[in-house]
């Protein structure tokens, strides 16, 4: 394996995964010197049963928990400021984010505001450096996770906060919470994990630690996503997909922000379309371009996607094309299970033309803007390969 002479890798996330993993929470919190945690949840997204399951895991612990289950897609820094004041008054000493997406983002930014005792959370700026260790944050991943829960990023009010200290101290993955409402929710989780893991894996700056995470994330998705999508009640496969999402977040935190991630994030922020759906749409286009440009190490994708035997049997010079073909076949298999539920184009996803223009405007401000705008134009009609 080629690796750069100098590299850095940080992953402060401890992972508890498997049967009854939630029940370890009281002991784990005690280990983090926390006795009075606040649970932050999007009850509508995860469902009341998930909240009950989490609360029952604290049975016999003698703890009193705060519960805020009112996170919505509209939750902004104003709500965070209100929550911060209550947290400081009630002296909560840890945060538990239940579910992925917005709940994890709100918990991270709330942790930042409470730990720094920010006078007004509405004035928090992503540029302001965080130089202090924050209170312990636990992420309890549930169906609908996107992998960013375990990352060092938090996106709120169209601002992206980034700091090593924002990453959770603990990620809990329990099969009871892994069951998705439907196949498309599971596919979105898996594709978001796959997209970020792939970008981290082929990134130009080599980092063996990061590759260990991204390799495992890609292989977990490859081996389990189809089963999990075909049968959302398959707890083993669903848990494996949640694991891959958690690993992709750790890998992604140590890589430069990729093109697929940017696409997914913009569509999620502006239109609420799950990031995985957009990343699945853009994956063949972005990797196809990468293959033509020869900028990225696409051959590295072949082993986690195809397995060790196929990797050994394929000549090195054919591995980039083989990896891309395998990825395209995987996406086709996924579409054959989900049918129209997994859109091939922005039109099928129901994105109207005027919203597309809005997306293009936002992407135009990015350093990869011209390229990403081109990808969006090609995604609009579902073009799979650049013609000519």
């Amino acid at each position, binding site marked *: 394996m080629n690796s750069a002479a100098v590299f850095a890798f940080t992953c402060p996330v401890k992972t508890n995964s498997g049967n009854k993993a939630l029940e370890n929470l009281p002991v784990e919190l005690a280990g983090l010197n926390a006795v009075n945690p606040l649970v932050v949840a999007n009850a509508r997204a995860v469902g009341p049963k998930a909240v009950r399951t989490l609360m029952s895991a604290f049975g*016999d612990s003698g703890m*009193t928990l*705060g*519960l805020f289950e009112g996170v919505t897609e509209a939750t902004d820094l104003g709500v965070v400021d209100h929550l911060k004041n209550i947290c400081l008054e*009630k002296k909560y000493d840890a945060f538990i984010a239940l579910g992925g997406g917005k709940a994890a983002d709100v918990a991270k930014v709330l942790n930042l505001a409470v730990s720094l005792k920010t006078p007004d959370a509405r004035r928090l700026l992503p540029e302001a450096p965080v130089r202090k260790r924050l209170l312990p944050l636990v992420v309890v991943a549930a169906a609908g996770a996107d992998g960013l829960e375990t990352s060092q990023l938090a996106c709120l009010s169209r601002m992206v906060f980034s700091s090593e200290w924002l990453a959770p101290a603990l990620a809990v993955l329990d099969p009871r919470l892994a069951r998705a409402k439907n196949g498309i929710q599971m596919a979105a989780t898996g594709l978001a994990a796959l997209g970020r893991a792939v970008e981290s894996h082929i990134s130009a700056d080599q980092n063996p630690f990061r590759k260990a995470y991204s390799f495992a994330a890609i292989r977990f998705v490859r081996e389990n996503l189809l089963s999990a999508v075909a049968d959302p009640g398959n707890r083993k496969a669903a848990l494996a997909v949640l694991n891959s999402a958690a690993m992709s977040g750790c890998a992604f935190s140590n890589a430069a922000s990729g093109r697929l991630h940017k696409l997914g994030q913009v569509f999620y922020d502006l239109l609420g379309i799950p990031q995985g759906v957009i990343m699945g749409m853009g994956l063949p286009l972005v990797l196809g371009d990468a293959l033509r440009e020869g900028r990225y190490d696409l051959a590295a994708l072949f082993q986690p996607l195809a397995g060790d035997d196929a990797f050994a049997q394929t000549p090195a010079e054919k591995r980039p094309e083989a990896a891309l073909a395998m990825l395209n076949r995987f996406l086709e298999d996924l579409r054959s299970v989900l049918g129209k539920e997994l859109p091939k184009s922005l039109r099928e996803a129901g994105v109207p033309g005027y919203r597309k223009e809005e997306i293009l405007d936002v992407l135009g401000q990015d350093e990869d803007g011209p390229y990403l705008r081109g990808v969006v134009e090609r995604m609009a009609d579902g073009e799979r390969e650049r013609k000519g």
Partner: protein
Amino acid sequence: MSIIKDVQSGRKPLKRAYVAIFLWFTGRAIQAAAKVDREVKKEFEKLPENFTFSLGCLPDGPWMVVGREKGVVKYLGGDSRGRPVQVRLAIKSLDAGFLILSFQESTTLATARNRLITDGEIPYALAIIRILDIVEVYLLPKLIASLAVKRYPSWWTPARKFGGRIGVYARTLLGI
């Protein structure tokens, strides 16, 4: 009204009662087995004088405390306060304790799944696990004991197994 609700963690009385009764009975059975079984006796003889160990669930019990006093192994109840404990085997939660003690998971599998914390010397902890395995073979029918121990001792003679079982049960019930 605050947007944050305070929720008091509930109780799990049935699981707690099951684990407490199991630990109480096993504690007495260890005391009995130390008198009946040569292998258990030998394991205890290798441990230091006044050696005490506890097994139970975090964060709030129940616990089982067993100690060796003047060469005699004794079940010392469920409270270790006031006694120095050399080895503490702590199961991370009551639910994990229930999984292990209802034989849904063997001790070795539970250890592999990170459900146990050992506070003390590892060789002593391993001796305790070996003793627990022998006691479980005496107390439980083969079908259930096979789930609880790493390897069921098929090489035991019927005399040792059935004779020992009668001795362990009788002494456990009588508390001698």
